[in-house]
């Protein structure tokens, strides 16, 4: 009870003020940036990007947030640093001239120094304080302060002075990044994490199967919630990009708009309307079944609607795809020229999975496409395990659906048996699943297309023969007979056979008709002869009647004659 009342304090709570870093994604996972006016420790092994992260923090602070910064370099000289980050488009010399940045290189060489008694690091304080005051700095980087330990031997003094330094920096109210090399079993070699307790960020550069992945994790962030996962990050020409990939909330908006697949007969199978916008579509099948052609046709249809399409090719070069698709009557080059279709071709082994994800994420954010194609996802398995690929694809689908981007994956199935699951196990994640399957018969291979699933719409349960022609893709009703599914020449043969059957039947029918005709003629003639017979019998009978009458008449006449004669006597 007392705790409850204590929690409802009357005064409004002020959240921890934060200094935005301006680094893509880092501000999202830290909930706004690094703790303002406090030191943050960035640690990691050699070459993991500590210096780059800290220099980007200072440069972006100066350029984007109006906070000048001091970069105290214990490792690199100022001009070396300037050269190193020039490739990122950071002009340190110009920033220094504009008093937005001050680089101070601290040179310590043990061989030049003799320790002759008690000392302190007041020189460092004065130097740093002077640098801060000279440009009114709000941000400070100490990279890598642990180098002091190699130059000076009095540990007790160093530790005491470092503790004093961090307190002093807090009092100065500057947001500080201290970098530290990862030690054996500790975050930093000299245990700097003991002194810096506000925020600790660990960078990692790991290599698995000869493929490197950069990871970032916020180990602690006092007074603030933060993402706790390991986030992959990318260093490219724009500096660091962190990908917050775990917001798996499944509450993205959905669209009921339907978009054509580019194949009208396929649209007919899908409730006559096509796919949902923003849905995920998987096209799987064995090698050479035309998966890429389906994807390219879909891309073509998207571009024809004047929408952007981003095509990630993991197997073929863009030129190759454009050339190959010409053979089926698709002119992708004009979409490329118009900037509607963008290819991004790279071997999967170029990067780790997470790096691919970050690269995709970044490109999608930049180009804002309506459709993203990944062709094929199967190759990603070479750089990660099945579960890793699946987790990557889950995050990708979530991200794309959150952006209302339609995505089409192609996947190669290695067995000819229809699997319940694709090899990447993504079939349960996608909204629609098309399966293209080889049907081998009569010494030829034909393609059959099924709609395995299609969420939220009535769809055909039938297999269609999938035909690639010079002018595009077509689906033809396969012949389903007593002999099973017939495709290709077998289907044609069956059709011919049926035509023959019809002809034969027609012939048979006409022969029977003639037979009947003949029978009727025979019967009719029979009837005629019987009639004649009857007439002759009738005549015969009539003849006796006439003779009887005649005899009777004659007898009558004779009797009258006799009577008359008798009377006349």
């Amino acid at each position: 009870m007392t705790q409850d009342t204590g929690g409802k304090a009357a005064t409004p709570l002020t959240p921890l003020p934060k200094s935005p870093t301006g680094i893509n994604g880092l501000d999202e996972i830290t909930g706004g940036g690094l703790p303002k006016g406090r030191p943050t420790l960035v640690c990691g092994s050699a070459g993991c990007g500590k210096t780059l992260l800290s220099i980007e923090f200072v440069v972006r602070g100066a350029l984007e947030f109006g906070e000048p910064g001091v970069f105290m370099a214990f490792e690199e000289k100022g001009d070396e640093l300037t050269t190193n980050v020039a490739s990122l488009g950071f002009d340190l010399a110009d920033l220094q001239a504009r008093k937005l940045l001050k680089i101070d290189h601290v040179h310590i060489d043990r061989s030049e120094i003799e320790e002759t008694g008690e000392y302190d690091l007041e020189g460092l304080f004065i130097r740093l304080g002077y640098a801060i005051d000279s440009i009114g700095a709000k941000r400070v980087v100490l990279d890598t302060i642990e180098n002091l330990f190699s130059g000076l031997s009095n540990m007790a003094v160093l530790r005491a002075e470092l503790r004093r330094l961090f307190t002093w920096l807090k009092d100065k109210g500057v947001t500080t990044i201290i970098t530290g090399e990862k030690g054996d079993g500790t975050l930093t070699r000299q245990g700097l994490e003991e002194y810096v307790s506000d925020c600790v960020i660990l960078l990692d550069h790991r290599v698995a199967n000869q493929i490197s992945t950069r990871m970032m994790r916020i180990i602690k962030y006092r007074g603030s919630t933060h993402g706790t996962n390991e986030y992959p990050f990318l260093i490219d020409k724009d500096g660091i990009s962190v990908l917050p990939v775990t917001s798996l909330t499944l509450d993205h908006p959905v669209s009921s708009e339907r978009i054509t697949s580019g194949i009208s007969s396929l649209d007919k199978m899908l409730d006559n309307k096509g796919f949902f916008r923003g849905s995920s579509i998987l096209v799987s099948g064995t090698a050479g079944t035309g998966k890429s052609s389906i994807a390219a046709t879909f891309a073509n249809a998207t571009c024809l609607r004047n929408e952007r399409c981003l095509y990630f090719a993991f197997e073929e070069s863009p030129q190759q795809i454009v050339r190959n698709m010409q053979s089926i009557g698709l002119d992708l080059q004009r979409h490329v020229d118009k900037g509607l279709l963008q290819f991004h071709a790279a071997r999967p082994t170029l990067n780790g999975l997470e790096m691919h994800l970050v690269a995709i994420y970044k490109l999608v954010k930049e180009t804002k496409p309506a459709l993203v194609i990944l062709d094929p996802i199967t190759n990603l398995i070479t750089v990660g395990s099945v579960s890793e690929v699946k987790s990557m694809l889950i995050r990708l689908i979530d991200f794309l659906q959150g952006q209302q981007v339609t995505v089409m994956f192609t996947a190669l199935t290695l067995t000819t048996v229809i699997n319940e699951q694709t090899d990447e196990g993504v079939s349960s994640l996608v909204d629609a699943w098309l399966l293209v399957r080889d049907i081998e018969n009569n010494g030829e291979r034909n393609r059959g297309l099924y709609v395995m699933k299609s969420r939220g719409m009535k769809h055909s349960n039938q297999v269609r023969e999938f035909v690639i022609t010079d002018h595009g893709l077509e689906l033809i009703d396969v012949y389903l007979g007593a002999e099973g599914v017939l495709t290709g020449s077998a289907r044609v043969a069956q059709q011919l056979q049926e035509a023959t059957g019809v002809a034969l039947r027609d012939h048979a029918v006409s022969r029977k008709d003639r037979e009947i005709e003949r029978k009727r003629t025979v019967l009719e003639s029979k009837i005629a002869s019987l009639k004649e017979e009857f007439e002759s019998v009738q005549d015969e009978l009539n003849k006796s009647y006439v003779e009887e009458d005649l005899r009777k008449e004659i007898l009558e006449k004779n009797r009258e004659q006799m009577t008359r004669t008798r009377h006349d006597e």
Partner: protein
Amino acid sequence: MSQEVESWDADLNTAPEPYVLRLYITGVSVNSVRALTNIKHICETHLAGRYSLDIIDVYQQKDSAEQAQIIALPLLIKVLPLPVRRLIGDLSNTELVLNALGLS
């Protein structure tokens, strides 16, 4: 040849070079005062008449800290004779100081 070298060595020994020393301190802190006392004593004892000692208060000349690559204070720099040596601390370890200055 060997004679020349010997005379060169003799020259060095007979005409000792002047010492140019620079001491960086921070105001009147304990270490600074002690360092000042120590270096003055050493100079008077071993380098009487052939040294110059600049005393710089870093608090007063803050930009000197960056120029002279100062981290730890007090700092004594032996500018001449070459090589340049940097001695940090309150110079209380006389033996070490003499060694570093090449006076032992």
